[in-house]
């Protein structure tokens, strides 16, 4: 399993994601935003941060970054892509995952430890997670309120594309509709997640639940060579 973590100017979770991927047993390297070359990586991670400053709207500039050409091709070929926090915002702006991320309902930056219910464990992002096991990890963002019109939300849920939801007791800190914290694209190979699994990948940090996400990816890559573009069965 080879993991590439993209460094955009303004990324601040790139080294954290690199570290977590290595903890999960992957070979991992940083990829530079100006070079549309993924160095043969099986999984591309778009990390947290404020790519290009995010002064206009989160993720809106990064979408036009040269490396996104390669990321788009990778996704089109059935390659794995995980966007975390700002990475999710970028994927949403690039229309690689459904939904938009609005400012938090509180109109404030929110940093909290949250609990995620995992909706499916038959995806490459969740296969190592025991069914029914909630994940605790931190969340930190100003624009993470997941939004889609009602009918599209119904369709998203019906297609099994909601992967993570905020769960009690901490609940939903940003006002996301239907408590959605993470989604997958229709093919099941591209995932966007607002909370930060890479910051919860070791017990010493208060939770190692996040490592399960990285382990899932490493294990599923071992089972499914990157060249095979097999999407999980959609319910």
């Amino acid at each position: 399993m080879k993991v590439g973590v993209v460094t955009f100017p303004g990324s601040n979770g790139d080294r954290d994601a690199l570290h977590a991927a290595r903890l999960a047993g992957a070979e991992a390297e940083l990829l530079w935003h100006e070079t549309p070359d993924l160095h043969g990586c099986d999984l591309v991670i778009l990390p947290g941060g404020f790519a290009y400053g995010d002064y206009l709207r989160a993720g809106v500039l990064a979408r036009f970054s040269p490396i996104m050409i390669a990321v788009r091709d990778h996704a089109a070929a059935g390659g794995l892509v995980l966007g975390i926090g700002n990475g999710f915002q970028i994927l949403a702006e690039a229309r690689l995952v459904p939904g938009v991320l609005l400012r938090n309902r509180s109109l404030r930056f929110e940093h909290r430890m949250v609990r995620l219910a995992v909706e499916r464990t038959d995806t490459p992002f969740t296969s190592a997670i025991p069914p029914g096991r909630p994940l605790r990890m931190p969340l930190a963002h100003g624009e993470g309120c997941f939004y889609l019109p009602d009918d599209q939300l119904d369709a998203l849920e019906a297609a099994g594309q909601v992967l993570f939801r905020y769960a009690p007791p901490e609940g939903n800190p940003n006002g996301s509709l239907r408590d959605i914290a993470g989604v997958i694209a229709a093919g099941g190979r591209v995932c966007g997640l607002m909370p930060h699994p890479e910051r919860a990948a070791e017990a010493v940090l208060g939770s190692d639940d996040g490592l399960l996400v990285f382990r899932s990816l490493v294990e599923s890559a071992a089972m499914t060579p990157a060249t095979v573009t097999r999407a999980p069965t959609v319910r």
Partner: protein
Amino acid sequence: MSGSRDPLAEPLQGALGLTQHELDEIRDRLGRDPTPLELAMFGVMWSERCSHKSSRPLLRTLPTGGSALVAGPGGDAGVLSIGDGLAVVFKLESHNHPSAVAPCQGAAAGVGGILRDIFAMGARPIAVLDGLKFGDPAEPRTRHLVQEVVRGVGGYASCVGVPTIGGELVFHPSYGGNPLVNVMAVGLLEEHLLTRTAAPGPGNLAVLFGSTTGRDGIGGASVLASASFGTDDPSKRPSVQVGDPFAEKLLIEASLELIGRGLVEGLQDLGMAGITRAVSEIADRAGTGIVVDLDAIPRREEGMEPFEVMISESEERMLAIVGPERLEALLEVCARWAVPAAVIGRVVDDGSVTVVTGGVDAEGLPLPGAATLARLPAAALTSGAIVYERPARAPTHRRQAPAPGAPASASDRLPERGMDPGAVLLSLLSRPNLGSRAWVTTQCDATVGADTCEASERGAAILRVRGTRKALVAATDAVAGVAALDPYLGAALGVAECARNVAVTGARPLGVTSCLNFGNPEKPEAFWQFGEAVRGLGDACRSLGLPVTGGSVRFYNESPSGQTLPTPQIGVVGLLDDIDGRVLPPFRDADDVVLLVGEAVPGLAGSEYAALAGIVVEERLPSLDLAREAALQRFLVAAASERLLASAQDVSGGGLAVALAECAIWSGRGASLSLRVSAEPAVELFGESPSRVVVTCTPRDLQRLLDLARGHALIVEVLGVVRGERLTIRLVGAGATGAAEERGASVADALECTVADLRHAWEHALPRALGDEAFLAASTDGAVG
């Protein structure tokens, strides 16, 4: 020289705050009249904030040595070795006045400035802690300031990817017109990358990189930081620097890459007094000089005067000294990070800062037809700047008027006056100074970097050091309530409390940084307060064996409503050799034994309890025995390393009862305890006398822990056990049941509260004080949407 104009005719002199005496001194040193540009350069460099002209003689008395010291004051921040080839770099700074004028931008720029001090030395910034002080939270202006300052410091740190791991938020009416925004930054350095803030090697080039130079922050050092405040004055807004965290993030990465690749000989951040300070300090430290090519400085606007370019405090800029052969590689790194860079000068060997317009040649000499606008000895601007021996005078009248309706005598027996001590505890937890800080901490990113083990609401925060078993522990505290009455004691208490907060985790305190926020040093009484605080700081650090590795001094914290409390903000970093040995405040397991180590001494002055009760008890300050404090901290480190402690919690604001309540709230566990009380139960329950901690251990470890405490000559009292869902403290002894019953008073002889009630009071305190009940609704329901 183009010094033909009479400097006295320049309105600049007054605007930049130079006195007639200082002007005379400048003429004496130069043997001529200064040019207009030189005058501006002296104006900013001899301002209080840059020159420390009032404080330097006193600051020299502070202890700065120590075995772990890699670099002490003189660099940008202190550097202490933590083994494994690593060092911790840390410093406290303030951005008080800019935060009063433009709270979000001002506070944000403060974070940017202190971070540059850290990475200029080659260290990656890994954490910030905020020491925030505001006026009455019921005032709309205070609420606005709190929200905007929190947004500023939290937003900036989050964007540059540095976690905000702790700090303190304190309300006191004296800060109403002049909030304090102190920021402590911590960095981790691979020692071999330690970078000098110096300009060695004549022939080397000075490269300015980062943002362009504009008119923002002109004279910020002198105009804002070195004068007292009028009312909210929009005319001062142009003096506030505007922070751009994205630019800073690029600057951090570019600087660390330049250092990591060995491309720079020296690196200096630009902050107060801009290019003038950067070039004069970096030259003075190396004993060299610099010729600045004024025309080469990239600007963000047209028509800037030479003095504006030279003293602008535009944010997010750095100055690198580079060998000509490495220039190309340096420019490539900057270009990769999209950071503009320009060669703006050359290192020479004449000890002077020379500013030339019209071009310089490869030797740093003006080209034909070029004009030299300034030529000043670098030392005269920095290490040799003017110094004042200010007169100091103890205030003759230190009493505050009692609050209306307050008891006339120093009665501190509240529980005996018929009040339920449980109700007093709930009232204390409901106070904005003692309640939960979640309102702030949820607005700041505490976990970016993936090294945060414990972010702290109060007390110390813990960061693991990746690749080792070690952890860094950091805390910041100020005991301003006491400092107002006795600045010596207040500063010493601040050091003791801050170091104790580090030691309760089991970490060995390594060193101290401080930000001394005081009034106008030209007023003898304010200067006396400052001198006493420096003396207290020095004595406490010597007793605890801690070097003062750096810090800052901020005078003129005054507004039309008066001087703020003198506030010696203290920062301490410590080292845990094994992170698995860390000790946290919450109770751990049922049936663990609860002990109080240390004993209460009389005195409620300056306490939250005194503020709640409206009692004025100025003559009875808690005393501090520094030898006992040192013994307590040694005991804590030893007990943690022997794995005897299940939990440990410092006793400070709100006293023992609040400390116990926090242990209960944070763990969700109650305790069944007995406390021997004297004639004044309020002292034992709510007094803030120092050098006390609450620890717990398993029954099996009790005897060893007691022996260890007695071996350190400490007084220990077994209070009871962790149990149930209530905090119960039975009061026994002369001050409790017996005495009260004899008088026939119907007095509660126990403090009893459910943990749920304690939590409710504690959680609601701050949002309620700030009028933001919506925060609670959002937090408690969870599902907002």
